[in-house]
């Protein structure tokens, strides 16, 4: 939509760019609170802290676009972190361990994917079951203990840089690029949006809907596995308790990024911003010395505000006059868009 300055339409501007507006506002807040925010060292620091959240959010986005949800990502992150540490301690090459972590994550995704696509489970239930199983596996494998690793490559991938940029950020950019490319440029992306927007119409258009649903959970699992390995690198250890609430944070991220949990809507770059917003809020609150539990309250409020502003902007909530009674407000928007 091209708008000259003369007929600048705030509502459509806000609808298109609200994630960016929130993001920029947040950065301004951040820089006011922390004077050395704009040092390159600090920026690379906070990006590194949130890189894996973005990676997992990309997987979550895929599930959400199909109208699903993946609750198992946090649990997969913990399991693959623990396994990566154990593999490396057991003598496996770090690079092979990354592949193994991705494989384990994908395998967990296969379970969810089969339940959703073949056995028609609601994604919420399917991934909840996977989450519980994977959590159990994590504790069976780790006995609840942290596995420390002293391998130099392990440390390098977590803390080191290539061409002046931390490895973690390279990984994040690579994943964002891949997901963005698939969703916006390829046939697969087109079909994924159609499957989420209207599965029956998609099926009648010749799309193999179950295959796409299956693939989405495998990808989400694999990305969580990749993130699990890198979180272990960053900590220098495999911890069974890491990743709690990541499922919620990533869901919040894609929703703040404008995706619809009903499916069919969601953009990768916006989801990335959503993840960074969630991550930055965590950083800011830490900086302000807010304790963990009050942080949760703030996070919840932010999610409510973000979704509320989207609904207001899109006219989903009619504010200007009463609609009363039991009749749906299918209102003026429909009228003005007609013929």
């Amino acid at each position, binding site marked *: 939509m091209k708008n000259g300055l003369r007929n600048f339409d705030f509502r459509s501007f806000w609808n298109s760019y609200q994630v960016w507006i929130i993001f920029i506002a947040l950065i301004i807040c951040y820089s006011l609170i922390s004077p050395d925010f704009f040092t390159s060292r600090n920026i690379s620091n906070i990006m590194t802290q949130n890189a894996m959240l973005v990676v997992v959010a990309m997987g979550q986005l895929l599930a959400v676009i199909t109208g699903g949800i993946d609750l198992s990502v946090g649990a997969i992150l913990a399991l693959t972190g623990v396994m990566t540490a154990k593999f490396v301690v057991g003598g496996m090459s770090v690079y092979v361990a990354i592949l193994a972590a991705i494989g384990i994550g994908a395998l967990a995704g296969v379970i969810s994917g089969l339940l959703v696509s073949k056995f028609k489970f609601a994604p919420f239930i399917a991934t909840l079951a996977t989450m519980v199983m994977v959590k159990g596996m994590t504790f069976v494998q780790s006995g609840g203990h942290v596995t420390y690793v002293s391998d130099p490559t392990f440390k390098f991938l977590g803390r080191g840089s290539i061409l002046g940029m931390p490895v973690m950020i390279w990984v994040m950019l690579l994943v964002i690029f891949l997901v963005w490319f698939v969703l916006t440029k390829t046939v697969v992306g*087109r079909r994924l949006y*159609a499957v989420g927007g*209207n599965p029956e*119409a998609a099926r009648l258009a010749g*799309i193999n809907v179950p295959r796409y649903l299956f693939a989405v959970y495998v990808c989400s699992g694999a990305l969580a596995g990749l993130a699990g390995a890198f979180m272990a690198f960053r900590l220098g250890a495999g911890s069974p308790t890491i990743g709690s609430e990541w499922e919620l944070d990533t869901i919040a991220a894609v929703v703040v990024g404008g995706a619809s949990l009903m499916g069919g809507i969601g953009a990768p770059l916006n989801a990335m911003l959503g993840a960074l917003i969630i991550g930055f809020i965590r950083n800011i609150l830490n900086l302000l010395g807010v304790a963990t539990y009050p942080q949760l309250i703030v996070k919840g409020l932010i999610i409510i505000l973000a979704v509320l502003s989207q609904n207001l902007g899109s006219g989903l909530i009619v504010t200007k006059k009463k609609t009363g009674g039991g009749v749906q407000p299918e209102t003026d928007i429909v009228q*003005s868009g007609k013929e």
Partner: protein
Amino acid sequence: MSYLHMKGISKSFPGVRALSNVDFEAEKGEVHAIAGENGAGKSTLIKILSGAYLPDEGQIFLDGKELSITDPHSGREQGISVIYQELSLIPNMTVAENIFLANMPKRLGAVKWQEMRQRSHDVLQEIGFDISPNAKVRDLSIVQQQAVEIAKILVEETKIVVMDEPTALLPPREVKTLFEVINKLRAKGVTVLYISHRLDELFQIADRITVLRDGTKIGTVKPQDINQDELIQMMIGRKPAERQYWKPERAEMLKNAPVVLEVEGLGDGKNLKNVSLSVRKGEILGIAGLVGSGNSEILQCIFGAKQAVSGRIKIQGKEIKSFEPATSIKNSLAFLPADRKNLGLVLGMTIKRNISLTGLDQLSNFFVVKNHQENAVVDQLIKKLRIKSRSREQMVETLSGGNQQKVVMAKWLLPECQILMFDEPTRGIDVGARSEIYELMLEYVDQGGTIVMVSSDMQELLAVCDRIIVIGQGQVTAVFDHEEATEEKIGMAMF
């Protein structure tokens, strides 16, 4: 003064003047039809009457008193009820609970179930329905559900009932039942405002017809003073297009055309028993039948939208082994469902993305969509099918029914499907747009395509089809060539 008088009603929406200075009058115990194309202002007028919209200007009088209707609830309290196309019943509750939903009889806060059931039973009997008050609404047929809605209205002592497309989902036999109910309402002194796209119904049931066009009232007429063409002319403001689209030379042309689709012994284990048919290249084959006769299942089974349990299908002489939408499309078959919004389109996507969905394989290179080529092809189709839109990036949900159907057609022309199977090609599409759809269908067959269409609108079948087969109880009961087909013959063969 009339019983109901809506005086000088105007209403604007951003960018649209939906109604300007409309006067509408109806008498007590009258069935008054409101006719007009989509966008003429019918639904706005109704929504103002019921309180869903507030008018910018104008007054409403009922029985000489001015009403102040501020929202649907106050509309109901003042005796005005609307029965919408999508019924507003709660499927998991019983008939009695639905009828008394707004106003359950109570004693000391406890619901008087016995009285509720008894009164539900009585009021349903009154309109000629024998439905158990304890039945769950979800188990009822559509006409029974409408009866429950009407019972609800009678219990609330409604004075004005608005029926918005009440027959859209009804099979012909049940339309009769509905009309009997409407006659009973009329006899009880209830005023019925009746909206329908099916013009022949207006002539059957209405005492008077008021025509709206572009937000203004064109006039009020009695059905006995006017014929259907004249009514259409009032609605669209010009002479109606030719009602006959079929041309005699087509019969000669089709004589030697090869058979492209052959179906033998098709059955789905339920309504559809045993149907065989064959279609020639370039032909338009119509399928007539009552709802439940298995007619709409035929297309679904051929396409693979629904699983067939028996039968063989040959396309261009080649037998098809698997009945799946994906393989059907590869075999050049396309299916255009009656329920376009839920089955044919992804409403939240743009025109472009809906159209290209079926043709992505041709428009891509190693899975990467070729954007320029896609845009060019889509624009070409928008032009060819005369889809009225701002741009290819417009969301399909904002299009009118006729243009939505054109998008569905475009979607199948992109992969160059050779056989289009339409289920109710013009359901919910208004008169003007209908003729455009028919013209496009004929253009398509003139260029070598083939069409199979199921329709419950006999005039439509007679206007475009080269051949009509009639389905009764899951089997073919009759086949007519265009020249020999008449409404009577088809109607006889249905039962």
